[in-house]
């Protein structure tokens, strides 16, 4: 879809970034087409936020470049800033100003003023169901409403591409779905390109394409369904008393690769459900449990990195939140 795109909305061209001796990004390259919703999925500490800060012009990469509608973040950050709307992970609204005042402030920074600005702000607040809260201080809004106000603010200068850093963090499931629906509507109404980072598997599942990033490497990229297909038909997760012993036996029984992840065994195969009774009969005393699942993006991650997503997540509180 994007590899052949002549004029990508975003082209990340071999971005490498180091903090001292630590390499946060290693030669990352990918493209996002206009009108696409693209998710960068990865555990915290994997390099997503570094990449985010580079493509939003807040940080220069150690090497490589990124183009936003043909403008280099390295050489023409100002031109890039005219094209982009950004919602950062941390709140970017001033809590001591009203919702409307925040909108006006942001609009003026983008060269808007007068009635044009006020009307545009009013229209967006109406669209996001915030009209009745426009005179309230931002600090009095719930987390979900603040996020919506952030999105409204970012959209005020009509950006061609919207960057969102962990938009779902701190939102309850209802607000998360609301937010996702807003993005979908935005894309269908204005063809705005959306690039978001996330460590929520479910959020990435709703994107047109996903780039999986781990330890600074882009380990997989493609549409969620296509990525899952690459994993295989179905996934069996087997808990065993002697995993290593069983691993060898299963390997020779099905002549396919059996992975050991965190003490459990994973097998990907076309008709895994049919294998369940065979395994149960062949190794009665050795198997504690067998779970059958369709591959998820988590399986894609495991397939590429050999690690469970949650274990790769360095940020424990966020990992805890993901479990619940």
């Amino acid at each position, binding site marked *: 879809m994007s590899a052949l795109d002549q004029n990508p909305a975003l082209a990340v061209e071999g971005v490498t970034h180091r903090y001292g001796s630590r390499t946060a990004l290693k030669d990352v390259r990918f493209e996002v087409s206009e009108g696409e919703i693209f998710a960068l999925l990865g555990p915290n500490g994997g390099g997503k936020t570094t990449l985010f800060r580079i493509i939003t012009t807040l940080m220069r990469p150690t090497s490589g470049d990124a183009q936003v509608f043909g403008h280099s973040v390295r050489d023409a950050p100002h031109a890039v800033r005219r094209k982009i709307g950004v919602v*950062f992970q941390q709140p970017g609204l001033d809590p001591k*100003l009203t919702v409307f005042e925040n909108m006006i*402030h942001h609009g003026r920074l983008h060269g808007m*003023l007068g009635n044009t600005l006020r009307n545009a702000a009013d229209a967006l607040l109406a669209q996001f169901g915030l009209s009745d809260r426009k005179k309230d201080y931002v600090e009095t809004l719930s987390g979900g409403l603040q996020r919506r106000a952030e999105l409204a603010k970012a959209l005020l200068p009509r950006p061609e591409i919207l960057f969102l850093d962990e938009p779902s963090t701190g939102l309850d499931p209802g607000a998360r779905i609301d937010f996702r629906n807003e993005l979908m509507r935005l894309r269908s109404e204005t063809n705005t390109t959306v690039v978001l980072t996330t460590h929520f598997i479910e959020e990435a599942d709703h994107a047109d394409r996903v780039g999986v990033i781990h330890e600074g490497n882009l380990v997989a990229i493609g549409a969620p369904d296509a990525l899952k297909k690459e994993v295989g038909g179905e996934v069996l997760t087997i808990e065993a008393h002697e995993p290593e012993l069983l691993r060898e036996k299963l390997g020779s029984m099905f002549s396919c690769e059996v992975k050991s992840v965190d003490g459990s065994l994973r097998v990907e195969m076309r008709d895994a459900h049919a294998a369940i009774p065979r395994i149960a009969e062949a190794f009665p005393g050795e198997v504690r449990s067998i779970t059958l699942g369709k591959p998820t993006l988590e399986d894609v991650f495991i397939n590429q990195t050999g690690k469970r997503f949650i274990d790769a997540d360095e940020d424990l509180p966020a990992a805890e939140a993901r479990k619940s």
Partner: protein
Amino acid sequence: MTPYLLCTGTIWQREIVRFVRQRSRIIGAFGQPVLFWLLLGSGFGRNFRYAGGGGEGYLEYFYPGIIAMVVLFTAIFSTFAVVDDRKARFLQGVLAAPVPRSAIVLGQVTGGATLALLQGVLLLIATPLAGVPLTLEAALASVLVMGLIGFALTALGLLLAWRIESTQGFHSIMNLLLIPLWLLSGAVFPVAGAHPLIGLIMQVNPLTYGVAALRRTLYLSAPEAVANLPGLWVSLLVMIAFGVVCFSLAVRTAERSEG
């Protein structure tokens, strides 16, 4: 309006609005210096005569110094706000907007300077209490000087604030650098009677010239009272130069900052 001025203007306006909405900042920046003036001024007043003075009491001598302190405190509080903005990541959003860094810094500095000036004007009301023979001309000239001092001190504060991650860090800078800058500016005691080393530091301290300019404008109608201070034009030039240098350095710091 050009986008540059629009950006500067909206950042300026936000500084003012935020200040007005935070009552503690008004009290901090205004109440404390007044309290200092009354307590220190009347406490010292009966006990000390300073060398080289024109015969006025300490309350009168200390009065312009307190105006300088109000301006300094307001400037410091404005720069606190920038540290907070960076910490709260509000500034990230500003930095990702298509605006020159200098327009952002100019908005912040003029915001701080305006607040400093307004507070100074409020203090001018106490002039008769201090016994300073203030005329309208002198008052207007003094207000301009306050704005100038406010600009330079806010720019100095910003130059530091754009590098510092925490308000705690800024507190130590304030105690080690900004308060001594004020103490050794002729605001509290004159250069004439000080230890030679201290006197030397005072002579190279740019704020000495700010306070001198303020004394000269306050006593516009009675120049003989401030005859032993640096001249008005020299003082103004030094202060303008100091302001421009601090502002340029603050812009450079902001340009290198990653929000």
